[in-house]
């Protein structure tokens, strides 16, 4: 592919810790991707609007507050409302293993928990974006 992959890195919800998101953003940058970083405390509406305007290939959300079961599926729902079906949606952060099947069922395509090497995330994005 001769164009850079564009990824929206975002922090939904109310927690104020974005170190993990920034580490991921930097790793994706170093892998040659264009990372649009939106900063803290984003609503699902803000995330979806930004993703559409920025025409991203992937939405990567980091969440530590425990609100993942509410906020992450909401993003997928809003994308459906907007008829967007070609953006890969992934999540990461402090997410208990037992919640992951539910999130996947709701359309979060992969979930990366603490300790995942950044290379795993990078490879996953490269192999799974929907537009070539």
């Amino acid at each position: 592919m001769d164009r850079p992959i564009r990824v929206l890195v975002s922090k939904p919800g109310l927690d104020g810790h974005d170190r993990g998101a920034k580490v991921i953003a930097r790793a994706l940058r170093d892998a040659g991707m264009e990372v649009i970083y939106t900063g803290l405390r984003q609503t699902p509406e803000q995330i979806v609007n930004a993703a559409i305007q920025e025409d991203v290939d992937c939405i990567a959300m980091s969440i530590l507050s425990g609100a993942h079961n509410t906020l992450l599926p909401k993003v997928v729902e809003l994308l459906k409302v907007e008829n967007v079906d070609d953006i890969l949606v992934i999540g990461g952060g402090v997410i208990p293993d037992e919640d992951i099947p539910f999130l996947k069922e709701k359309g979060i395509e992969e979930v990366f928990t603490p300790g995942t090497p950044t290379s795993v995330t990078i490879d996953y994005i490269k192999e799974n974006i929907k537009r070539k």
Partner: protein
Amino acid sequence: MDLGERLLKGEKRAVARLISMAENHDNEAIEILKNLYKKTGNAHVIGITGPPGAGKSTLTDKLVKALRREGKKVGVIAVDPTSPFTGGSILGDRVRMNELSIDPGVFIRSMGTRGHLGGLSKATAAAVKILDIYGVDYIFIETVGVGQSEVDIAKNADTTLMVMVPGLGDDIQAIKAGIMEIGDVFAVNKADRDGAKRTATEIEMMLDFNKSDWRPPVQKVIAVNNQGIDELLEHIKEHMSHLKETGKLQKKRTENSKIEIIDLIQQKLMQMILDKSSKEEMVNQLAEEVALRKYDPYSAAETVLENMKNS
């Protein structure tokens, strides 16, 4: 329905996709822009430049909000640097414009420079046209914001807003060529800090040498507190009125169009020459020889051009 029609209907996804296609040198986007070019030229294009950390994004956020209160539609193009090593980039200007994300009358797009120098991306001019066709009243272009040579914005905007902050240097900075020459309106941001008055005075002194019939106004602002924003916006609008009344708008746009045509010719020629010589691995071979001092770069360039002529 094709992308051009969807753009005319005001569909945001069409705007977004067309900008991506322009960034990726997709010919379909160029064809669409050719057909719709007549519909451009209505938006007031405002360039925002200045050193990193001067508060360009915060200022843009406040100016856009002021225009939204007047019911205007606004587009924002925010340019950030691309890594020369990996081609990746962090585009982080949306962080200061979060509330605008959900405003249906605002379209914000981040762009990496992708190797282009001068403070913009090569596709910025195309993105401006796309937003113009989409129907916004104002387009803000926020440049990368480094160094003293980010002057491309002056060739892409109707009004260039130069954002300065106190404490950046002595008065010799103000008389150097380059960046300080392109401001049509000056904002001294973070005006609650020490030295703001002095910075404003130094800019005014530099402007005393200004020979044009437009004397750039210098406005002190505190963007985070929304202070001085309405006054600044007024100056920006006055500049546009001045351009229109004096016939300078037409002149400026003619000059900018000429630069754009020449740039496009350069890009096309470059592409043609490199396509042909890279097929023949010519440039790579010559580069090796030049690096080993078997050959000189001047003759190498001539060889590539000769090869082009003979084909």
